């Protein structure tokens, strides 16, 4: 038949195409290597420029700093640091352990840290984490708010000898050493400065892995560093990070056995995940809290007295329990304070600190809102960015909850903003007219990190422009306190002011979620919801 001949020809064409390229790709999985999902990091992969989770994953594998946060407890533990001493909470002496080297053979010295920090702080290097160095003396000289820098290095950092350097802060900050596990504070080898672009193509660090190859935008192959001198060497031969644009695709790949680990289960799959993966599904608390922040600069929402009642009333009108169960399938926990359970009771987490103001109580809510004269103009909007995540679902659910409480269909509506960038611009230029969504992922597991950057007057992430002299005073006192328990107590006192003023409604604590294939074991997430890659074992 004529048709058959044509079909044969078509088949042949495809076969030729196949033969020409067959064996070109494929997973090529070597036995001990774990493949893991990844998102394209937004910024170049360098410590002081990495401010989001995707780049953070790589930093965690490539670097070890003075301290590291224990993957289980979140406690800051000395790694490269032998000890960090202070008598006045302002002047610190850092002593390093011996034996640490970078994977190119260069040893890790006091200079490796001081140079790296000076690089991160300098304005001309445009590092996105530069504000992490703001407590070090001389920061205003190398990184002025306007104009050109008048110094090249931080005057507060002095190298004493190979293994010792001193740090002078510009204020008292007793828990400052505990911030040093953040990626901005990692040491850098001299190769970083000598040939910066080559280093960025193939970063060199002092962590348990080395970079084998890096194809920007698609894959990063890390291999175990056999001569790693640290206490936590990799238990597998390497990690292949693969960029996925769609978490659904990564999940499909996991199901097909084409991928070993996903660290973000897509919302649409949450109802199937138990059946698909069984006990290979991870769902554990992470240091992330979601809030609804009020624009305190708007006279409709800010201020005390009646407006306090209004803000508290709205908080009580939200049925957190129902939303976390129905929409998030228990991957979120209703929040009852402004911190996170990963801090632990000793670290300052206190369940129920918010009290009745964070509990669902429609009667009381309606009464409070009415006492405050009702919603401003009879309605409210909830701002969110529509480009990522499933924000629309839960924003609508919150609005429903509020509408039901008030017995009106049109009291609350969502107000989507097209892109995250636009959303952030609107917030920063104080254009929000109603409460808006805010998420906070901790930089380090300290109660200070959940309060000061968000609610201190003029702080960098104080999006609602909340300002309260009493709160500021308590935070300052807490920072000056050398005794950890007392400092935590002060922070909690400050938190009680938030409960009363309600500048931001705590919604829920976010869990980290993930799933893995039956090829690997010992998979867990750290408090930052990043997989603890070096502990993963391959069967």
């Amino acid at each position, binding site marked *: 038949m004529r048709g058959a001949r044509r079909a044969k020809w078509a088949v042949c064409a495809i076969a030729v*195409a196949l033969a020409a390229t067959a064996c*070109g790709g494929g997973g090529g999985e070597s036995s001990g290597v774990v493949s893991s999902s990844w998102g394209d990091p937004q910024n170049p992969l360098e410590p002081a420029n990495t401010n989001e989770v995707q780049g953070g994953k790589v930093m965690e594998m490539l670097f070890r700093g003075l301290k590291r946060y224990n993957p289980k407890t979140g406690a800051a533990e000395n790694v490269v640091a032998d000890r960090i001493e202070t008598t006045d909470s302002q002047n610190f002496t850092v002593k390093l352990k011996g034996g640490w080297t970078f994977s190119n053979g260069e040893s890790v010295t006091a200079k490796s840290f001081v140079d790296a920090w000076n690089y991160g702080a300098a304005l001309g290097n*445009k590092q996105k984490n530069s504000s992490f160095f703001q407590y070090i003396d001389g920061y205003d000289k190398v990184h002025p708010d306007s104009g050109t820098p008048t110094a090249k290095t931080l005057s507060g950092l002095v190298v004493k000898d190979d293994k010792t350097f001193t740090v002078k802060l510009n204020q008292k900050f007793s828990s400052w050493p505990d911030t040093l596990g953040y990626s901005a504070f990692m040491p850098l080898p001299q190769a970083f400065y000598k040939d910066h672009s080559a280093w960025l193509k193939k970063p060199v660090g002092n962590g348990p892995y080395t970079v084998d190859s890096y194809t*920007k*935008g698609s894959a990063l192959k890390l291999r175990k560093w056999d001569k790693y001198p640290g206490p936590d060497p990799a238990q597998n031969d390497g990690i292949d990070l693969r960029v996925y644009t769609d978490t659904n695709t990564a999940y499909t790949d996991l199901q097909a056995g084409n991928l070993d680990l996903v660290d973000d289960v897509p919302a649409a799959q949450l109802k199937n995940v138990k059946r698909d993966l069984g006990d290979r599904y991870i769902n554990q608390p992470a240091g992330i809290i979601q809030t609804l922040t009020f624009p305190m600069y708007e006279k409709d929402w800010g201020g005390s007295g009646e407006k306090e009642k209004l803000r508290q009333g709205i908080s009580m009108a939200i049925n957190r329990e129902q939303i976390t169960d129905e929409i998030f399938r228990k991957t979120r926990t209703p929040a009852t304070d402004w911190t996170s359970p990963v801090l632990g009771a000793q670290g300052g987490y206190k369940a129920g600190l918010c009290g009745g103001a964070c509990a669902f109580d429609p009667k009381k809510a309606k009464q409070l809102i009415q006492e405050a004269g009702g919603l401003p103009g009879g309605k409210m909007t909830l701002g969110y960015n529509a480009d990522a995540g499933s924000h629309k679902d839960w924003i609508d659910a919150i609005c429903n909850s509020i509408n039901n409480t008030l017995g009106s269909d049109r009291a609350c509506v969502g107000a989507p903003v097209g892109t995250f960038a636009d959303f952030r611009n609107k917030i920063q230029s104080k254009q929000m007219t109603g409460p808006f969504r805010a998420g906070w992922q901790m930089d380090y597991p300290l109660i200070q990190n959940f309060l000061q950057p968000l609610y201190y007057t003029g702080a960098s*992430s104080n999006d609602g422009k909340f300002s309260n002299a009493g709160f500021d005073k308590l935070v300052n006192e807490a920072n000056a306190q050398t005794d950890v328990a007392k400092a935590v107590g002060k922070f909690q006192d400050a938190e009680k002011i938030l409960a009363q003023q309600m500048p931001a409604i705590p919604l829920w604590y976010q869990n980290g979620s993930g799933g893995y294939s039956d090829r690997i074991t010992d998979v867990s997430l750290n408090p930052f919801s990043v997989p603890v890659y070096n502990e993963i074992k391959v069967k």
Partner: protein
Amino acid sequence: MGRYVIRRLLQMIPVFIGSTFLIFFMVYALGDPVAALFGDRAPDPATAAQIRHDLFLDQPLWKQYLHYMGQIFQGNFGTAFNGQSVTELMADAFPVTVRLTIVAIVIEMIVGVVLGVFSGLRRGRSVDTSVLLLTLVVVSIPTFVSGYVLQFLFGVQWGWAAPTVSTDAPLNELLLPGLVLALVSLAYVTRLTRTSIAENARADYVRTAIAKGLPRHRVVTRHLLRNSLIPVVTFIGTDIGALMGGAIVTERIFNIHGVGFQLYQGILRQNSPTVVGFVTILVLVFLVANLLVDLLYAVLDPRIRYA
């Protein structure tokens, strides 16, 4: 012929300038991208100002545009936010998308034309009706549905193919995504070919050819098909551009790091150099594809001559 090509090439210049300006203007109208680089944290003003200065964002729009065009003519498409030059991104992304497009075009040409010829020659019979029905079904299924369904069936359920494409994106892994990408166009090609064949089958030159005693397959391939392919070629020509730029959905489903991926990422991050650069190249691809189509007419139909 030569003069015609030169005239067409010259016409491309205003189109090129106009379209780049429009895209540039639209991307920049989205607003300031710098804030998003800092995540949920408010950017430190001094660092943000420095970044804006380096990206030329502190200049008025027309100056930015002139600066950008000046760069382009030196072969520099600017730098993406992750520190990679856009030319580098293009060198990574375009070969992948070109391969995907080729797979899709080959599938839609072969399958589409063959099906079209069969149903066109057997107009009104059962083959024709079933092909008609089949194409209707295919046209009405959106790409993301067919993409996810085929990916799940072939990739997860039956395990015949990897559900996603690896970094190098070799041709064999691109067969499934290519098929998904080709499906809708394939239906159009089938129907265009069918109509055209059915019309021309009664033309005088076909009757002459048959009367001359030529074998049937020769009549169909040399006389009938060649003349009937003109609308199909037009469609495929424009489709090349559409497939290259419009593969965003398919590339996302199968995790292919091609042009669609870069555009998507660029738009989300308001990374104007990436978006403008890629779209500019896509505009060029469209223009060139259209020129080639016009030239092909002359090859297919001897009556068409360009002066």
